[in-house]
């Protein structure tokens, strides 16, 4: 079963290495668990398909109408990548909204501080 060609080894080892990198980043708190799930899923799918090159991948490729099975691996990887990118846009949108709200509150608090300072100065003058 493990008489793999060089390209087959690459297709297994690269996603496997990245899978471990993601786990390690989560362990060191460099990546949040919730954002890591899509990555782990993506690499997991690629690893499984690459290992089961002669059984599962062939069936999947045939189902997708793809003549050359390794191409299916790329197509699936590309599709999962698009999902990841979409997730980034969605996260960025949420962060942008939050940072907008934070900036607005800072501006309003700034104005209020200045207001209070000038009233305090008026009070001091009266004394």
């Amino acid at each position, binding site marked *: 079963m493990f008489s793999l060609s060089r390209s087959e080894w690459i297709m297994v080892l690269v996603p496997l290495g990245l899978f471990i990198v993601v786990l390690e980043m989560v362990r060191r708190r460099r990546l949040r668990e919730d954002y890591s799930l899509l990555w782990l899923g993506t690499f997991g799918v690629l690893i499984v398909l690459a290992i089961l090159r002669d059984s599962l991948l062939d069936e999947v490729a045939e189902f997708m109408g793809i003549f050359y099975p390794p191409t299916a691996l790329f197509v699936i990887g590309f599709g999962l990548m698009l999902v990841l990118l979409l997730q980034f846009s969605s996260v960025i949108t949420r962060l942008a909204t939050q940072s*907008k709200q934070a*900036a*607005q509150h*800072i*501006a*309003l608090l*700034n*104005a209020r501080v*200045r*207001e209070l300072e*000038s*009233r305090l100065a008026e009070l001091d003058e009266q004394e």
Partner: protein
Amino acid sequence: MMGKQEMVSESTAPTASTQYAHLRTLVIIPAYNEEASLGRVIQQVREAMPGTDIIVINDGSRDATEHVGLKHGVTVASLPYNLGIGSAMQTGFMYAREHGYDVAFQVDGDGQHDPTELHELLEELVSTSADVVIGSRYIEDRGYITPAARRLGIVILARLISLLIGRKVTDPTSGFRALNRRAISFCADDYPFDYPEPEAVVLMKRAGLEIHEIPVTMNPRYGGQSSITPFRSAYYMVKVIMAIVIGLLRGRPRLVGG
């Protein structure tokens, strides 16, 4: 209760519009790098409406906009970085709601709007059932010259918006506006972040707010740089139309309180 600019200006207030003196009004001036024109705009607003409070929303300017505002004794809320005029205006509406103003005006910091016409906006807002009054360049021909391409863009937007909201709008990109409490509260909660004016018209109308237009005169800019370039104009049209159409697919915006 609201601070120094009110006390300073009201002690010597002439009776330009004592009729509405009981109303607490706030002029919101969004300003991004407008040091050249801001001082003049503030002065003109003061002369036109001596009793009003003024807040400058300094949208992350890199010039002396904040300093100019403070020097003229108005409230300045400085955003820590540039958010775009929509979010700047929303900050102004948040301030207006927080401090319980009856009426908020939007006057752009570049000097294109004529503050003496604030009274006409106010008159229309108070004497009719309008929740929002927009000053339009295109109801009467008052000599404002718009480049043909931009005019075409505005006409397309105006037609589209008129069609969508079932009421004629001639100048949906105008940022010269007056809003009552209901409209202020709505805009404080929900306001588009960039190129907000046309989208806001649709949002407000769908929230059940009544929008009127009155004819106004607009000037060319006093100073600074217009933010409009050909590429941005194209982006503007696409973004605004997309935002409006997608907005229609969302639920009806809710008017909280009132």
